[in-house]
């Protein structure tokens, strides 16, 4: 007997390929906005129908919207008729188009990132007239959690957090308390110079102690605390084989009462056939049009 789940996945994969081949490409455009009067930030935007929900998709740490997991979701939702916006956080770089290397000088912080997210959420809300559904991947999910938490008036409708991780100490994270203590100490000393830390998957991460701390502070507890505020409906999607997120973190999420969807066999990036499972899961979460 064949596994009915696997058969369904294959069927979905075939349908997606066929639809990708026969459906006309959705009209998309690059949107540029001036951020903070210092730099230009960009996003890919696909205009959906008038009644279509507006979705913002946010990439992971140091990545761009071109990251394959993000781009596949963007394409799928665009083709489904949603109004979809995929920004690339500038990370301090004007019109950033490429992922930023760990070894580069990092001038960005959680605050600057959230400010850019807010810029795009409000632009999308304004553009579509609809509250925005937040959809993040990995650190992008963390930043969206933080955004909802930090920007209470944000016009958001729903949160879908894929491979939701955390900053700060934890299995699969490079951060460590020692670095944080060093950063705190530096901050106390008023040091604003560059220091080398470990961050996320970067073993060498050059930034100011303030910037480092801004990310590090969004650890497990702070995220759970933010999630538990239940301001908007939230869904969390995990791959059962995600090696970047420790199991205990997943259990804590599940234990918090959030709607958690686990896709069997998928990893952190939902590669290969699991992207269809992910898409199915998202489709099931999103409101119909």
């Amino acid at each position, binding site marked *: 007997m064949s596994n009915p789940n696997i058969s369904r996945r294959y069927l979905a994969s075939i349908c997606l390929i066929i639809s990708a081949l026969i459906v006309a490409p959705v009209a998309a455009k690059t949107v540029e906005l001036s951020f903070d009067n210092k*730099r230009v930030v960009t996003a890919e935007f696909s205009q959906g129908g008038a009644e279509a929900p507006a979705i913002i998709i946010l990439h992971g740490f140091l990545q761009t919207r071109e990251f394959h997991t993000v781009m596949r979701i963007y394409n799928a939702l665009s083709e489904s008729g949603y109004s979809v916006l995929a920004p690339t956080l500038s990370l*301090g770089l004007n*019109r*950033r188009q490429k992922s930023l290397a760990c070894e580069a000088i990092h001038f960005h912080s959680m605050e600057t990132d959230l400010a850019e997210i807010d810029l795009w959420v409000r632009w999308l809300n304004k553009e579509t007239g609809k509250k925005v559904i937040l959809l993040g991947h990995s650190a992008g999910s963390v930043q969206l959690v933080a955004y909802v938490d930090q920007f209470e008036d944000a016009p958001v409708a729903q949160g879908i957090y894929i491979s939701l991780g955390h900053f700060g100490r934890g299995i699969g994270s490079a951060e460590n308390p020692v670095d944080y203590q060093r950063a705190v100490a530096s901050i106390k000393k008023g040091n604003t110079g*560059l220091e080398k830390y470990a961050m996320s998957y970067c073993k060498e991460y*050059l930034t100011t102690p303030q910037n480092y701390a801004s990310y590090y502070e969004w650890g497990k507890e702070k995220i759970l605390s933010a999630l538990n505020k239940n301001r908007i409906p939230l869904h969390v999607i995990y791959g059962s084989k995600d090696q970047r997120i420790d199991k205990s973190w997943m259990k804590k999420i599940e234990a918090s009462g959030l709607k958690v969807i686990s896709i069997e066999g998928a990893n952190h990036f939902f590669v290969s056939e699991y992207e269809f499972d992910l898409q199915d899961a998202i489709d099931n979460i999103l409101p119909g049009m």
Partner: protein
Amino acid sequence: MFGMAVFVLFVFYGLLTYHQMQVLKQDLQTSYQNLANDEIRVAIDTAHLDIKKHAVEFASWEEVTQQIDNPYYYAYWYNHRSLNAGVVPDYVVDVAIYDKSGNVLSKIASSTLPDAVTEDALTSYIDINKDKVEMVVFEKIEKESPSGIFQGYISMRSNLIPELIEFKQYNYVDHDSIKIKSTEVSKLLVSDFSRYISYDLRPNPIVDDMVGIVKDMLFRMALIIIVPTLLMYPFVSYLVAKPLKAISRHIDSLKNKTASIEANSLAKKLPVSELEKVRNSLNEYHQQLFEVHKSLDDKNRELWNMAHHDPLTGALNRRAFDEHWRSITQMFSGGRMDICLAIFDVNNFKALNDTYGHQLGDEVLKGIAQSIMKVLRKGEHLYRLGGDEFATVFINCTEQEALHVAERCHQAVVDCPFNDQGVLEPVRISIGLSETRNVPDHEMLLALQWQADVAMYSAKQPGKANIAVFSEEMTDKIKGIFSSWVNNIVYEAIASGDDIVIFYQPIVRLEDRVVEYYEALVRIEHDGKMVLPSDVFQIVEARSLDAEMDIAILEKIYHDLGSGKIPTGTGVSINVSGLSIVTKDVLEILYKFTRFIDDYKLVIEVTETSLITQIEAASKNLNKLREKGFYIALDDFGSGYSSVRYLGTMPVDIVKFDISLIRSLADESQQLIVKHLAEMIAGTGHKLVAEGIETEDLLKKVNELEFFYGQGYLFGRPEPRPLEQPGLLDGTHSS
């Protein structure tokens, strides 16, 4: 030799081929060098483009923009990120970022790039510093956007040599050998850079293979030629060279006449059948050659004997004498020697011959010659000079010895029993001797013959003992006859014909005194002096020069006839000796005269005596001449035997009565005989000529007889130019 030629040819060909190959290699090398230069230029351009491409990529790197936006940490970024982020390739050694004003974001002490750039100075250049060759390029930083925002500049310094070496398309340049010639040059234009590069060419496999193939081919050819040649040399030497050398030696020995035909050196059988055949042919040929030589020697000896011996007497002939005399002259001229010449002459031989006939005369000559030869000593030879004249030469012999030999010769002739052959009269010889002693004078040698002649003439004189030795006193007595001057003139005249002058005496018809023809009479004139005809004919007769003299005279007459000297309608009467009439050369000249037959009456005068000696041959030739239109006149009739019987058999048209008969007309008793004789001869159809008519009285008497023609001073003397009209001159000389 052949091997050597082949070897030399091969060496020449090999060197030529190798040279051509080197030339071709050089040409290809030059072409290769040019292509390599092009390749280097392409490599530099490609490297330049590649570096420019990386510079563009670098300029578009977001971290560069980041540094422009926030240059606060530029030094850190420069040291840790600029070259280590993997954005630029390894050969990039330095970079710099400039703001919109062209000023570097932050001056870096270790940087070798300029601190500032300007819009108009963004041309790439090359720095050469010792072994480092670096290209510096510039690019503008323009953020990709629809507006293309200009943000500043970057510069990039790249190590060029590794980039050149990594150029993938080297076909001609050995990229590992690329080096820099100059040690320090700054800001060199990229387009000029190729001149500062040195490199080696990659091995040209085609040329190298080709040269290798040619070398290999030459080596193999050398082996093919030399090895078999060396191997075959002993064999060929044994088969060919050695036998050929043996044959060559054999030929040399045959040439030197030191080897017999079956020479030991070639007795062994030769290894090659063809050479063996050559050997046999050579031997056979040599055998035949030897036999031919022997036969030729025999024939030569026979011919020499025939040419140098008198067939009648067995003595050596005049030719042999002349050769012997010449050899003596050449051999002893200038040396001290004694030479004695003896000339023998038979006394009254002509009369003897006339009386007993020439057959018996020949027997007499034969007996005399054999008698003399018997008594001559070893090394002394008898020569028959002509007729009844003999000679012998004594070398290194005293006068007494020569005289003694001459006496023995004379006695031998006296003792010869000619009576047994029917000769009743005693046969004697006269011997003239001349000698020269220790006088190496050429002229003296030449004079010996004449002196011996004089002595011999003297010995014939009555009262002499038939043997005489030349003395100066004899010269005076017989100077006229045997003068060497006269001899020489006569000889010279006959040889050249220059001094011979023909005088013409008219012969007229007695009935009307019209010149019928002229008798040609020879004279010899030298340096204004005339040689007497009597002297001339004595010498001619003594030297047996009859035919030669007649030929010279005939040539002159022929010339006179041809030049019109002689009036046409007349004629010429030519005296020809009995000996000449049987001489072929004389006859041939006479035949030439037939061209004048129509204009001239041509008469051949012969003497009765000369005809008698060879009557048969003479008659035959005279008949031929008559058939061609000549008239034949019998001269001096009545001066000798005057045989009417002979006259009847002779082919004669005209009979000239001797002057003695004509003069005898003055004597009444003689007149009658002459009258009847003339009547008788005229009666047989002959026309008669009366010679010696010098007076009218004599002419009157001649006219009373049967004479048809007259000749004499009364009608005209002999003149160089013929008288056309006869004169009636008083004269006292006859022709």
